[in-house]
């Protein structure tokens, strides 16, 4: 997860928006479902079964936002869309926010903080819960080490550590697939397909092939991006 690209010497509002508008749009966009949920909760409008409403909305948004954060790197390395890197960290953290809400709803509203029952009923006897919980546990160290300080401190290991997000993604998709009924596997399978695609394009040979063919088809990276690179290089490559 990277920090925002910063550039100096542009202090006008238009300049600021040009630099950071994308980050704000994506970040606020990703937080919109949370605001909507809060609004509905405040109005007592969470439906007949609030536990289910919160579960579905938080779970689904967590997963989509996590997949979006996984799309950032390939968008840059393959399509040269460098700005995508600016939102990767923000999306990763927001995914964790939704996943935490999902967990709090489960422990508190669903199981009424009955930890004995949670252990016996859910952890031991529901494999999909185990998959979801492991995914959430994996996301926590990634969130903690998402700062610039930790990036520097960990050096090359930072990238290695953050590869855990692939495992988290797989576990989340498995979690979704596992809890779905036989007649409702279509949606989780779509997410599984998207995740598979996002992981496959990271394989170095696949990525190289895609980059060569992209260059042949649409030419080299557009100049605007190169300007940005010159303005302030970001020390990141695809991972």
């Amino acid at each position: 997860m990277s920090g925002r690209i910063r550039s100096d010497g542009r202090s006008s509002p238009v300049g600021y928006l040009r630099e950071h508008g994308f980050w704000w749009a994506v970040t606020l966009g990703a937080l919109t479902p949370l605001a909507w949920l809060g609004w509905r909760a405040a109005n007592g409008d969470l439906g007949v079964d609030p536990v289910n409403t919160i579960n579905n909305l938080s779970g689904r948004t967590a997963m989509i936002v996590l997949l979006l954060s996984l799309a950032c790197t390939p968008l840059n390395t393959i399509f040269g869309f460098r700005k995508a890197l600016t939102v990767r960290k923000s999306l990763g953290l927001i995914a964790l926010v939704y996943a935490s809400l999902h967990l709090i709803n489960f422990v508190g509203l669903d199981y009424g903080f009955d930890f004995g029952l949670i252990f016996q009923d859910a952890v031991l006897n529901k494999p999909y819960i185990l998959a979801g919980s492991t995914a959430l546990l994996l996301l926590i160290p990634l969130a903690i080490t998402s700062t610039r300080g930790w990036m520097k401190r960990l050096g090359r290991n930072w990238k290695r550590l953050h590869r855990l997000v692939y495992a988290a993604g797989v576990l989340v998709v498995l979690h979704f697939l596992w809890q779905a009924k036989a007649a409702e596997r279509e949606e989780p399978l779509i997410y599984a397909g998207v995740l598979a695609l996002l992981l496959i394009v990271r394989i170095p040979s696949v990525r190289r092939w895609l980059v060569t063919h992209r260059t042949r088809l649409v030419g080299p990276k557009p100049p605007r991006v190169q300007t940005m690179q010159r303005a302030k290089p970001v020390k990141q490559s695809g991972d």
Partner: protein
Amino acid sequence: MVKIAPAEITPEHVFLNRRQFMAAAGVTAGSLALAACSPATLSSTSAPAANAEPALTTALGAEKLPAALAFAQPTASTSQDELGDPLNQFQEITNYNNFYEFSTNKEAVASEAAGFNPYPWQVQVTGLVNNPLVLDLDDIYKRYTQEERIYRLRCVEAWSMVIPWVGFPISALLKDADPKSEAQYVKFVTVYRPDEMRGQRSSILKWPYQEGLRLDEAMHPLAILGTGMYGKPLTNQQGAPIRLVVPWKYGFKSIKSVVTIELTDSIPATTWNNAAPNEYGFYANVNPEVNHPRWSQASERRIGESGRRNTLMFNGYADEVASLYAGMDLSGNF
């Protein structure tokens, strides 16, 4: 587990005592002292659009409805089930429905089902019977006294409700059809109307929906054909105008909008069993000891409560129905 007091949960309901209600159901609603509930005021209702007055009330008029179904406001004879748990609200019961013919989203079924037109309706009783029947709703109301049954409904998705159904024991209808001696099972089929039921245009399940019971299960006095709820005809989203209610089995057994009841000598194919045989058995008795392959069935969420409660064997009806399964391996026959 936080319990919500009955008064909070059903403020709009006027509760009659059970004997009064049964008398009203059997004879005439005129004997009811409560004007707000009498058929005379049937046209007035405060229920919101999606689950408003079932079309039958308007179509037939109050006079044609049996007394047990002729209430303007949601009405039940009691505020709780025999275990002391409060009834769920009319609003909850009619806005949280698993009815894949309309939508896989439980809270969208009510509005998706608004265009369904269940009247007129015919149910045929066929197969291994000496006296095949074709009954319209009027026949059903005339032949079979509609009575109230307060039952728990336990969904396989691990949520539950307490519902004041109106209906009649299916045994009465089966006796009239007079099953032949070789009849051993009862197959039920939902209406097939892809024009009105948008879910039937997709292939998520094999349509029409089918369910089945062993004949002795169907003859059990707790097994009813439901025609109403809270003193009103069933809403479309609940499976209007007539559905099965088998309270000791997971909800998916209680097939909705039934058009065919067929007596057979072999075990009928059932929809969910077809879709995932290792996950949904033919019996589908509520059983906290038998896990679904991917999730525990030991606890459940009562809609309207927070926290969980333990799921009861046979959904709390073990005293009544356990003998049906004496000596049977319930995990093998899940």
